């Protein structure tokens, strides 16, 4: 039964090796998807390229379905799997700030590392900027400490809050995502930018 490493108390070195291998897969998937291009990422918000939407939602749906099936087959103990801790204020405010960073900088941390790896100079500066941002947060932490821990809800799952099964919520998310894919593909036709698409 999984998750394997915490349950079988596998040594730290193997854990780090697995981390590297998973990172390798992550990097390859991001790069192949075209997430190493900031204009492709930004295209999401202007409608000429909705790759971000497609990749992002397909990935989370695949993983979500995978978890549901693994759980049903008795292959994973979901009570151990990490569920993000929910602090209302910091999640929303942090998300808004990140959204601003996304549209201004054109990357998010994962994609910037991936883009920097293939020589995108703007991505390297973005990584540097992220480090500065984290440093600023660290230096001014006393100002945010209260906000950081305000309105704690805990690691709550949406399915528990709504009182539906994980699988049923999954189906709802899938249908919503498919609708978005459809809209996305229509938008790609509507806001076509041949000049940009050719360059990418």
């Amino acid at each position, binding site marked *: *039964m999984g*998750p394997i490493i*915490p*349950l079988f108390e596998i040594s730290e070195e193997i854990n780090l090796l697995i981390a590297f291998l998973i990172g390798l897969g992550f990097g390859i998937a991001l790069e192949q998807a075209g997430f190493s291009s900031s204009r492709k990422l930004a295209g999401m918000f202007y409608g000429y390229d909705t790759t971000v939407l497609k990749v992002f939602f*397909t990935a989370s*749906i695949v993983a979500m*379905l995978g978890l*549901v*099936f693994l*759980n*049903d087959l*008795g*292959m*994973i*103990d*979901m*009570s*151990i*799997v*990490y*569920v*993000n*801790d929910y602090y209302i204020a910091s999640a929303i405010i942090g998300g808004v700030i990140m959204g601003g960073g996304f549209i201004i900088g054109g990357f998010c941390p994962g994609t910037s590392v991936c883009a920097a790896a293939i020589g995108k100079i703007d991505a390297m500066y973005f990584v540097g900027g992220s480090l500065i941002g984290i440093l600023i947060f660290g230096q001014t932490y006393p100002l945010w400490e209260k906000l950081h821990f305000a309105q704690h809800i805990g*690691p709550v799952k949406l399915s528990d809050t709504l009182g539906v*099964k*994980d*699988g*049923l919520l*999954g*189906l709802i998310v*899938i*249908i919503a*995502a*498919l609708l978005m*894919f*459809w809209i996305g*593909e229509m938008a790609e036709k509507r806001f076509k930018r041949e000049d940009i698409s050719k360059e990418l």
Partner: protein
Amino acid sequence: MKARYILSIVLVSLGLIAAILPQNQNSSLELDAKQLLNEIQVENYVISIDEMANAMINDDPEYQLIDVRSKEEYEKFSLPGAMNIPFDQLFNEEWAPYIDQVARKNVFYCNGTTLASDAWMLTRQKGYKNNYILKGGLNNWYTTIIEPDEPTLTNGQEAMYDYQARLGAKQFFTGAGAADNSSNKKKAKKPVPRRKKKMVAGGCS
């Protein structure tokens, strides 16, 4: 064919299957009926009186006797060094550090076998390890240690050694050196950190 169509079909059908699946919670620690039945068959959870007596005489820190009878019975008579966890309080939070741990062998006992075996079944099914049963309980302990049957010649050498050991144990438990019953209730060994199932630390922060 467009990739989106294939993807939509595959995802919707898998989503439908996922939606009708019953929601069950797996637990990596708790045993199911088949696993528990296997444990019962293997039967390596029983500790013989001789083994236990030997451990008690040597004050082996690996063993912790746990009396699962009621408090009154425990106070009337108990084995030296035993702590009392009355069966009806088995799952009280205060005892969790004692029965859910990986450092020592806990040996459940009662007068006969029923309560101890109940306690073992329940704790084992919850995935707790290192719990054992004293074979035959106090009654067996008495007939083995205090009133041992003298082996006849046909029983062989082994039985004779056992008998000698039992006589020694009897001396230990009843002889002049044995402490008074009231004072030999040694304090239970300190609980050790229990093996707790905790969520993986993750996320980005």
